[in-house]
């Protein structure tokens, strides 16, 4: 149970970073933290108590394996996360080039 709660705490830390931080890079870090909290949680959902790695072998029973599907899905989600993060960082760099700052309070030109 504790690990699930820790994943929740990590998620909240990430969302806090996104909502409260004013630095673009810290916002991106918040997104990364929140994303990895969700991915960790997904892995935990597939975990079985005292389970072993999901490798099919003739001498071991299938019943003790952890669920392999979330692991495969999380790999996909990590790749997606990589694409999003790369794009966000590229945008942050271009914004720095235009404004000379990472502070979102100074970048806020669009309003209303």
């Amino acid at each position: 149970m504790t690990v699930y709660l820790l994943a929740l705490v990590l998620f909240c830390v990430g969302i806090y970073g996104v909502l409260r931080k004013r630095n673009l890079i810290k916002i991106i870090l918040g997104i990364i933290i929140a994303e990895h909290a969700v991915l960790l949680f997904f892995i935990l959902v597939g975990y079985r108590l005292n389970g072993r790695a999901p490798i099919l072998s003739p001498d071991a029973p299938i019943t003790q394996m952890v669920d392999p599907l979330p692991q495969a899905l999380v790999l996909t989600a990590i790749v997606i996360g990589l694409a999003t993060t790369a794009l966000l960082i590229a945008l942050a760099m271009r914004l720095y080039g235009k404004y000379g700052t990472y502070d979102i309070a100074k970048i806020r030109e669009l309003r209303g």
Partner: protein
Amino acid sequence: MNDTALLIPSFVVVPLAAAFVNSLLGSRIKGLPALLGGLTTVTLLVLSLVAIQRVQVVPTMVYAVGGWKLPIGIAMVLDGLTSFMLVTVNMVAFAIAVYATEYMERFTSKAMFYTLFLLMLTGMNGVIVSGDLFNLFVFLEIAGVASYALVAFGTERHELEAAFKYAVMGTVGSLFILLGITFLYSVTSTLNMADMSLVLGDHRNSNLILMVSVLFLMGFGLKAALVPFHAWLPDAHPSAPAPISAMLSGVLIKTLGVYALCRIFYNVIGFTPALSSILMFLGTLSMVVGVLLAIGQRDLKRLLAYSSISQVGYIVLGVGLGTPLGILGGVFHLFNHSVFKSLLFLNSGAVEYATGTRDLQKMGGLGRKMPVTRATNFVASMSIAGIPPFSGFWSKLLIIIATVQAGHLGYAVWAVMVSVLTLALFVTVLKDTFLGEPRQAWQDVKEVPGLMQASMVALALICVASGMLLLPRVKDAFLHPATAIFVEGSNYAQVILGKI
């Protein structure tokens, strides 16, 4: 495996392959990107019309990706709602691809534009045909990432700022969706949407499902820009190049937001009265707040973006009613809004192309110089305002009648009032932009090039004609199968699993 089943994956494969070829060769061969974009979208349009025709014969078709046995493998589904959405998306995409051939001349890298455009189309078509929840998420992210990049396409200060905001909010929305999928998987141990619905069976009212509903409502609400989650839209949509604004407002928010929300709530989780009242409330709130914020905007595209929020509210209100008539109205309004909002954004793009400004107060008297833009803009404005016989009138009428029938008189009154406000809004826009004497500054303004005109005229014709979709026989072919999917609800599971 017959040819009908092969039709389904081609909606994803064709634009994906075109995007790949384009990214390799597009920058080397001049003219290839535009040609490829046009050809791909016209192919997809034809395929989706074929899909409509096939759905008349076999109402539901399932394709197993890679031949893996369902429900373990990934499923792609073609049914009434899918084919309806495919036609809507690909028709708008075709008009936009044609428009962009001329419009994007001013930007430096047309090849990259078309690559991203086709990737976005891949994502949207994928979301529509996917019968697998995680796959839906993957396609949603493909469309999402492509659209973040497209919003930043101009790489000026405003574009970058809007794109950053959009990307952050979009990613957070996706995280909520992924979290919802995780919880659903933990209960059902399956990802196939039909199988999931079957496993959920009777214990749909547990607290966990409630939590999943809230997560999905936040996630897809962010994608659909329903009012508490709308903050990114008025920045992102105006900042993109006009064809992309048309794509984003016209179809992206509906495919990633409204369609995915409805598919999951109606067919997987199950539609409850509580959810119905939440959707109706959010819909009405978006409707009212959107139009109130739109009034007084000076930037033409920003005004249109706010009005998109308002019109999506109508769709959500109609669909959220849950009665067949309300759903019919919602679905019909979804189609109509795709057409006229794309057209309005293309018009704003044409005005910007000719004059270089989006500021309503600097325009005026453009009508004589740009007759085609004025005429198509008139059709679209009257359509969005709900003036008979243009398309928007019929769909709004259906939604309002359905709201009254369901006994929600208050919501109906709001819907009528918002419609009046929309009319006032767009009459003002028409006056500010096109009517009156031409200003000195606009003496040399010329009408936009032929292909841009052609795509605007085509969309305007659809606006005028789409009232005909309510004629009995046409309705049975196009709108009715889409509505039927909502009405059948969790029977979806039996229908799909029966096909495996």
